[in-house]
């Protein structure tokens, strides 16, 4: 059970404070901030204890979301609850930021009141909550041209006509009637996170994919949605058949609301999505990627005669080239030395498939020796690949039944993020 829930900004401003059980005083908020800022870098901050009170917190959107408890509660429950709370706030307010929380404090109090009673979690389902929540969200971000620069966040490409409006994914699910005009939209995102380690000799040492299918639904009522996956989709090693064209994952789990009666034969997921965002399927694939890793690096590190460190990096993108990218001008890259992190930050705004980029960095290092060359590395890439899944998972179709009255729009988006893409030197 939860004693208190509070939200603090990164500077320690109180944004939301709700006491459910009256067990602990309000000074707990300041105590928490004192403790969390006093932590040294390496200390795990997730659970902290002050006298009898446990603080469990997560960081999302630059804010501290804290729950306190006196009983020895389940850490998984509290952490998942806080994660769910952030998701709810994001669903209702559109985005997670200090500003949106500040502007929608009344809504968040109302949410907390319905979600938790006397420290016990009552419900976190948007379907139930929408009957109770009366306050309307104040959108902290009115439409601005600046938003357009974010297009592409979920794989939408400005070059194409059928662009999923990226602002749509960050608007509140319960929108005021006039503004959005009751737009019936549903987004199905296939999001994969890669974590790859490539050894100094170019050998792939580890390649893991964690993927999920996420549904974000704006329809006030949606009866049933059928999501068809690749027919050759297989789970586990034993089912592999044919010539390896199959899309394979090691493990796969589904949201409990997903019905799987047609999954075994037709690879169809049936789900009645509730408003807001939910993950309907999660899957993992370890080590055995169907495609080569998307980026390869050819580094050469040496010392020049002037005692400077020379790093010559050649980065190649092994994705299939797209014809579109040819029209783009050469990418305006930038590089910066970050002395605090002891790192060189090389930013490449756009990297077409099949292209190769190179960079030469010269660094003045005091007391450079042969041994310090060993210290260079690793190279870590963080990227986002739109319209690409490394497992090859595709959504064949997306059907709503019965057909929704009025115009409805369905979007399927694919994106691969780098969870951790490390290349050793």
């Amino acid at each position, binding site marked *: *059970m939860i004693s208190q829930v509070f939200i603090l900004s990164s500077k320690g*401003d*109180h944004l939301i*404070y709700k*006491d459910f059980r*009256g067990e602990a005083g309000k000074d707990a*908020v300041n105590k928490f901030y004192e403790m969390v800022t006093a932590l040294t*870098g*390496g*200390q*795990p*901050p*997730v*659970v*902290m204890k002050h006298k009898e009170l446990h603080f469990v917190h*997560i960081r999302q959107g630059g804010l501290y979301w804290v729950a306190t408890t006196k009983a020895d*509660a*389940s*850490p*998984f*429950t509290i*952490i*998942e609850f*806080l*994660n769910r709370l952030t998701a709810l706030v994001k669903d209702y307010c559109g985005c997670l930021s200090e500003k949106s929380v500040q502007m929608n*404090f*009344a809504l968040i*109090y109302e949410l907390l*009141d319905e979600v938790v*009673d*006397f420290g016990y979690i*009552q*419900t*976190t*389902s948007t379907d139930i909550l929408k*009957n*109770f929540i*009366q*306050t309307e969200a104040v959108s902290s971000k009115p439409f601005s041209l600046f938003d357009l620069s974010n297009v592409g966040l979920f794989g939408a490409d400005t070059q194409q006509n059928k662009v999923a409006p990226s602002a749509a994914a960050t608007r509140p699910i319960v929108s005021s009637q006039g503004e959005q005009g009751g737009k019936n939209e549903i987004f199905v995102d296939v999001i994969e996170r890669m*974590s790859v*380690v490539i050894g100094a000799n170019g050998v792939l*040492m580890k390649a893991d994919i*964690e993927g999920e299918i996420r549904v974000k639904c704006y329809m006030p009522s949606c009866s049933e949605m059928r999501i068809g996956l690749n027919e050759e989709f297989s789970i586990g090693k034993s089912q592999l058949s044919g010539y390896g064209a199959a899309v394979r994952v090691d*493990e796969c*789990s*589904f*949201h409990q609301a997903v019905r799987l009666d047609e999954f075994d034969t037709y690879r169809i997921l049936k789900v009645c999505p509730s408003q807001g965002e939910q993950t309907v399927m*999660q899957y993992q694939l*370890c*080590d055995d990627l169907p495609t080569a890793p998307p980026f390869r690096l050819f580094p050469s590190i040496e010392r020049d005669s002037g005692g400077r460190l020379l790093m010559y990096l050649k980065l190649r993108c092994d994705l299939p080239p797209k014809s579109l990218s040819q029209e783009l001008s050469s990418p305006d890259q930038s590089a910066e030395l970050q002395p605090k*992190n*002891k790192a060189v930050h090389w930013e490449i705004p756009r990297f077409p498939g099949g292209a190769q980029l190179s960079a030469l960095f010269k660094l003045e290092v005091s007391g450079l*020796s042969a041994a310090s060359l*060993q210290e260079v590395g*690793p190279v*870590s890439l*963080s990227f986002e690949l739109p319209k690409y899944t490394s497992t090859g998972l595709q959504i064949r179709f997306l059907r709503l039944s019965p057909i929704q009255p009025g115009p409805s729009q369905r979007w399927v988006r694919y994106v691969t993020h780098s*969870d*951790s893409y490390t290349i*050793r030197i």
Partner: protein
Amino acid sequence: MPYLGDEHTVRELRRALSNPNVQADHLRYRNTIHRVIRVMSQGQDVSGLYSEMVKACATVDIVQKKLVYVFLCAYASLNPELSLLVINTLRKDCSDHNPMIRSLALRNMCNLRLPGLSQYVQQPLTVGLKDKAACVRRVAVLGWAKIHTIQPTTGIDVAVVNELYGLLRDPDPVVMVNCLRALEEILQEEGGVAINKPIAHHLLNRLKLCDVWGQSEVLAVLQRYRPRSEDELFDILSLLDPALLSHHAPVMAATLRLFLSLCSTLPAVCMSALERVRGPLLAAAGSTSRELRYAALCHIQLLLRSEPGLMGEHYKRFFCGYAEPPYIKQNKMQVLVELVNDDNVAMVLDELRGYCTDVNTETSQTAINAIGSIGRSYTDRCLAILTGLLGLKQEHITSAVLQTLRDLVWVCPQCGDAVCSALEGWEDNLQDSQGRGALLWLLGVYGDRVTGAPYLLEDCIDGVRSEVSAEVKTELLTATLRLFLSRPAETQDMMGRLLVYCIEEEVDMCVRDQALLYYRLLHCGIEEVRQVLQGGRRSDPSLGPLIGRPPEPISQWASSFNTLEPLTLGASTVGNSDPATPKPSTLTPNTLTSNAEAMTPTPGDPHLPDCSSGALSLSVSPALTPEEFERLWLQLEKGACLEVCVACPVPRCSPEGLQVALQLVNIQTLAFTPPNTHPWRVYLYTHTSHISTKTPHTLILAELLHTGGEGEKEEEEEGEEEGEGEEEGEKEGEGEKEGEGEKEGEKEGEEEGEGEEEGDKEGQEEGDGEREKEKGLLVVMRQHPGDQTALRGFLSVLTTVLHTLSTHTA
């Protein structure tokens, strides 16, 4: 947080709230209240507005009502009298036709937390329990729990308690779960809600209807239920089994906890449950939420304590991501150390080597520590990496490496040579006192083998005046004295200087006392000094791999699974990957000696023969492939062959532990059967040579065979029914499935039977001696070319290892 103009804001808000024009305008009134709440959540004290807000409560606007309630609940305790005024409005709302208003009023009535109001609240709550809207019933049920907390002394009416029990059968799952929660609180003194068979089965059947939060709570309550029979137990388990694979971490964790508590007497079932949750736990450990990752990692560490091999093949999932926060990286490294085996050691070390140069110093230190821990089993590879790191000449890396080396040579003295050669020609001047302490310790112990040791010590002694750390000074004293024992001529003069300084000028009492102690000790004679400083200084070479923790029984940690404890534990041991690491530097020589004595085997124990000094030497190279082994084995069948029955039990340690232990005496294990199978076999080989007589090398192939005869099996089961070692686990599980009827009685008496269990265990240990003959191992040895003395030597080495293993792990 006090803001400027605090008073002013309150005054202004009050004026606005009491302005009749504002009150008349719906939206303006609501906006003003909005502002009050905003000011309140920013931390300002606006309790002065209470009476105005009480007035604002009487409205039809739900949004306004909710806002006012937030305010009233926050400040009710400061204004108990004024709160009485609210009660009327609330009671009126409780009979509103809109269920949402009813539940809102009921909830906030209890949330005011005023003991004086409870008489007004009871009546609406009783009505609320019978309300036709589920949302009102939910609130009413918890309302009773709130009343109980406000006034713990006045008990809740028995009728209400009974009604709550009745509401467990409410069609709404949230009402059901809330009833459980309320009863748990109200009946806390009686040990919580009574879970009998009908209630337990009802809860289990309705489990699917609850959402994830409800499920995990119901599962937690069900832990108190004890199934009456084996059949019932296994029915429950098979019902719960799918939940082990739930992709909601809270449900999965709660289910596993319930499994572990239900099957505390069936280790085999527990083990298979652990196998089942591996997938979901790994998924949680790779979740997008870093906090969830951390929680999962902490729990994986718990699991590994009992089942070290659980995650072995998934070691890559514990490689650190570049952008992960340091606390997760450090946690993952701690897990990686546990997962190392012959197949992955190269990859793991390669990965850890990469973390050693991490920008975060704590992370790099943890990585170095981790390599040191792996070094206990894979000494050569790790030493190569560690000494290589010294070449980087990075202050924090060097310091961490020295500390790790110090800890490593303590457990694995055979790596002394490598450490000495690394110290040869040392010239760095370390700033870090921990690292300096470790360097001094190494110089003291290995001073006789490092040529430059006296010069390094002299530098330190010359600079002792500027030394701040008392720890380093005591370390310096001990190191100097030790060096004096091995190289008196070079050390005597500076030792004199050091003692004079420490006795005459030092202000730290500990350092001064230690110097005095040494001074007096030196007066007693050099032999006494030697005895104090070197007696039992070196640890037993067999200790390294044998100290390796044997798998703990699950019951050791089951009670802390899915609690906050593993997460807070992680916080306290961070940066020290292995709390059991001996820290010789912090010990004064006297305690060091006694510590070393405690660590050497007791006199009764057989000592491992020191293979380097003995007449017979074994070596594992050249290596044999399994094919070669098989060919030779068959070929030598008619040749030199010896079968001996050794009176020694099957070692209880894991196959890996046995392998490491045998490797230490240069016997290579080629193949073995899994621990619990009958017959249990191990195939070994080694090359022998006599140092003294220069006879040609011989190759010995051996098979250890434990058949486990019929009579013995019976006895084992009798004696070890209650045993908790994993070895007996599976057998026992099967046995219980067959003989459920007999064992039922035992099951029920289990709570009070704990003491008995202890007794049983002791009895078992005593019985070990008697059964040794039956439990004996058959050793079949084949040799090429034949050499009886070598064979006998090999056999004696082998038996000592087996004995040591069984005494250490039994």
